[in-house]
């Protein structure tokens, strides 16, 4: 939970206020100067009317160089960031040929499969030569290869459900599955901090959508009781079905969801549950099976489990795992299965190899080592940051750590200063987070070694002092404390 001190809130509002005032002044002068220039739209309405893109033009463009930084190598623990320059005050950015080697604290590379791997890459290249880059066809026409069926069985076994179906992109999985499961006359209750793909899928389905407070099982129970008792709006007919949608790890908070309580509430009221494990599959849990394993929930209690392969498996695509009947139904009605090009075969092979490494079926124990490494790394990093006095969100064992910045001026300051010291950090502001709660988000990977983390901590501490984001008191260093530098190689 974020504890926003009053003084910080006031200063942040004041900073945004100044930015808005300056933005409006500049707009005003722009209108005066453009009055003389002829309007060459000739009867068309402009693409953005009035103040729709005010935020983009006046606030985002000033700090545009902190986002969208191109890289020219694999997104491994160290990568090459391309340098960019601007001639017109950040409105347009141009690439140069020069690159800087930086420590990567921003990519979703939880188990270190992002770069070429000794087990996965030869197999991927072999499958590329056998099945070529793409099948150019949908899954139902002629795009199903042996690799796809093999991966579906493997995913079902890994997640712990009877059957699974694959899709080529995680975002499309959510947007196209939810309309196939529920339609008009149904109710979707989703967590207030759910991802944009779930929001789009819920909107596209035509069902009524209600929101419950983030991770708050008593509030969910209250909302459910009220909705079931009153029925559909205005007609008061009973709801056809109700689905509750939650995520395993919330990517902007780094928190795990309170799964046992929420599942208990859902079972009591006979509603269906949909769990989105985009960030947690493969990254948490004793054997990497996700948030169910970590929190001790039986997978049979959750109706539909969704996940993506982009984060922990270093590939692309998404999957849905559920009972055999649901999967059969989805294969017949889901538009993403019937109309979209099937997943690229080399990407499928990458997931198969990565899953085999995690399960230990490749004959080594690299998978178990990677899982232990990421857990160690996350817990170490988080505790050190908290000791330094930063405000860090998220639970233990979660590899995502947001550090609160709040003030809009600190966002570019933190980001640019860290880049000068060769550490690449991701900063997030409105509209991905609420206006006052800007943050820097760190993603730990199993590929980071202990030295990398210590260097990162040094740099972040120095920059944090410069920028002034150590909102909490620093823990006093206890004398004669022996630090255990346990490294698992």
């Amino acid at each position: 939970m974020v504890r926003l001190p009053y003084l910080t809130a006031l200063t942040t509002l004041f900073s945004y206020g100044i930015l808005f005032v300056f933005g409006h002044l500049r707009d005003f002068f722009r209108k005066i100067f453009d009055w003389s220039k002829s309007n060459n739209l000739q009867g068309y309405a402009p693409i953005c009317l009035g103040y729709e893109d005010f935020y983009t033009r006046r606030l985002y463009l000033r700090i545009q160089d902190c986002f969208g930084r191109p890289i020219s190598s694999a997104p491994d623990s160290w990568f090459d960031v391309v340098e960019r320059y601007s001639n017109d005050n950040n409105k347009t950015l141009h690439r140069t040929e020069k690159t800087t080697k930086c420590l990567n604290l921003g990519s979703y590379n939880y188990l270190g499969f992002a770069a070429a791997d000794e087990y996965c890459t030869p197999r991927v290249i072999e499958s590329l030569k056998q099945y070529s880059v793409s099948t150019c066809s949908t899954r139902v026409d002629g795009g199903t290869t042996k690799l796809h069926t093999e991966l579906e069985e493997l995913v079902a076994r890994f997640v712990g459900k009877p059957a699974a179906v694959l899709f080529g992109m995680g975002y499309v999985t959510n947007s196209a599955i939810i309309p196939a499961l529920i339609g008009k006359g149904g109710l979707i209750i989703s967590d207030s901090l759910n991802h944009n793909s779930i929001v789009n899928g819920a909107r596209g389905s035509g069902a009524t959508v209600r929101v419950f407070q983030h991770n708050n099982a008593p509030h969910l129970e209250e909302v459910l009781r009220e909705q079931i008792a009153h029925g559909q709006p205005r007609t008061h007919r009973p709801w056809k079905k109700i689905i509750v949608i939650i995520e395993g790890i919330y990517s902007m908070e780094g928190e795990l969801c309170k799964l046992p309580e929420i599942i208990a509430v859902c079972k009591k009221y006979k509603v269906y549950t949909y769990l989105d494990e985009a960030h947690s599959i493969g990254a948490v849990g004793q054997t990497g099976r996700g948030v169910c394993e970590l929190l001790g929930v039986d997978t049979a209690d959750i109706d539909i489990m969704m996940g993506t392969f982009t984060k922990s498996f270093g590939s692309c695509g998404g999957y849905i795992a559920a009972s055999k009947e649901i999967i059969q139904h989805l294969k017949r009605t889901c538009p993403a299965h019937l109309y979209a090009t099937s997943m690229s075969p080399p990407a499928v092979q990458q997931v198969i190899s990565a899953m085999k490494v995690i399960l230990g079926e490749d004959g080594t124990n690299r998978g178990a080592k990677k899982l232990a490494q990421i857990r160690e790394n996350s817990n170490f990093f988080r505790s050190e940051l908290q000791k330094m006095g930063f405000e860090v969100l998220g639970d233990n064992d979660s590899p995502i750590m947001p550090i609160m910045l709040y003030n809009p001026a600190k966002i570019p300051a933190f980001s640019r200063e860290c880049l000068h010291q060769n550490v690449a950090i991701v900063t997030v502001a409105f509209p991905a987070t609420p206006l006052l709660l800007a943050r820097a988000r760190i993603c730990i990977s199993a590929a980071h070694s202990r030295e990398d983390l210590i260097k990162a901590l040094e740099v972040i501490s120095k920059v944090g002092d410069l920028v002034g984001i150590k909102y909490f008191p620093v823990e006093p260093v206890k004398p004669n404390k022996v630090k255990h530098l346990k490294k698992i190689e």
Partner: protein
Amino acid sequence: MALAMVNVTASVLDWASSYFDAPTRAVVFGVPIDGHLVVEALLVVVILFQLTRKSYKPPKKPLTEKEIDELCDDWVPEPLTPQITEDMTYEPPTLESAAGPHAIVNGKEVVNFASANYLGLVGNEKITDSCVGALEKYGVGSCGPRGFYGTIDVHLDCEQKIAKFLGTPDSILYSYGISTIFSVIPAFCKKGDIIVADEGVHWAVQNGLYLSRSTVVYFKHNDMKSLENKLEEVTRRSKHPEKVRRYIVVEAIYQNSGQIAPLDEIVRLKEKYRFRIILDESHSFGVLGNSGRGLADHCGVPIEKIDIITAGMGNALATDGGFCTGSVRVVDHQRLSSSGYVFSASLPPYLASAAIAAVDYLEENPSVLSKLRTNIATLFNELSDVPGLVLASHILSPIVFLKLKKSTGTGKTDIDLLDSIAKQALEEDSVLIATTKRSSLDKCKLPIGLRLFVSASHSESDLLKAAASLKRVAALVIS
């Protein structure tokens, strides 16, 4: 008698006037109390009394906890998915090799007409080599969205290459074919805007139109007269033309019917009524036009007149992903407000390098386009007399669409008939053909049929074999 009445009235009036003209009876607190004051005081008292009475409303009784408990216990939800019956289970054919013109299905070699591999780039040596290089350098996935270190230099190179090839200022890459169009439309069309769309557009476009919450008007499939009528109607009814954005959404080659949109007509109408065009070129990029630049090249329309062009790269370019081009303003706007671009991981780098290699190949070998055109013409000719089926696609379209001459009555029996034709063609003659499958969420009403995707790498014998097989099987099944 009358005199007596007059006297009585006069005396009453005298009494009344004397009463009212009498000097004031009392002086209370310096205020003389007249008769009318008493009446007014009584009125005020009555008004105040009525105001303090509660107005009549039926009493509100909220549900008690016990009642809510009972309602929750009584409520029975529908099952999440309907029951699966035996005939609903359908297993698609599983490929055991690359999806080229000849593929291996279930151990047998078949002629493959189910892959939209128009230029024959599946299995091309140069593309495979560039992918191997990219895989060794970048790994498979890009592990992040475009805004957070997911932008790799091959993405930027690919965007510039496509923009240069088409002649537009800039372009933007998406990570999946169908997510392109349903992210672009809501980025530009908001509530209150007007869209005129063809009724035969595919599901992804329909989803984009639904998510945009604009007013959508459909016109008859590929009918320019109907389009003109609808544009006229919409312009007449629209109140603030300067504040409302208006778009026409069409596809270059419709994948539900194989028709080609007449772009020069549409551009003429767009300029007359002041609309913008969103054109989906998934199946025409790399196919139509003398150099493969798409529908604008084919119809001789300058590319600047089309405002937004989107395309999926999973067809002619034989990779995955999609792109969108237009003016600089159009492309820049999407970098922050298109949900499929901002909130999703970027395209895997090896697919972007495959796209660059594919566009290079197309620039260097424009003869592959004429080979494709000859193949389409041959197949079209051969299939013009299949018993029971009639050709419904355009003569230049690489999607050759056959629909039933006479429907059997219900949609279900039609689908079963077509499925059995495709099944027999695969098992007996080793020809892999696709039937159109419609999702229950799809609102398109165009008839279903058989689709053959022609490729430039099909040989003449392949085409003749497919035509002969279809004629034989159709004669058997439709009798």
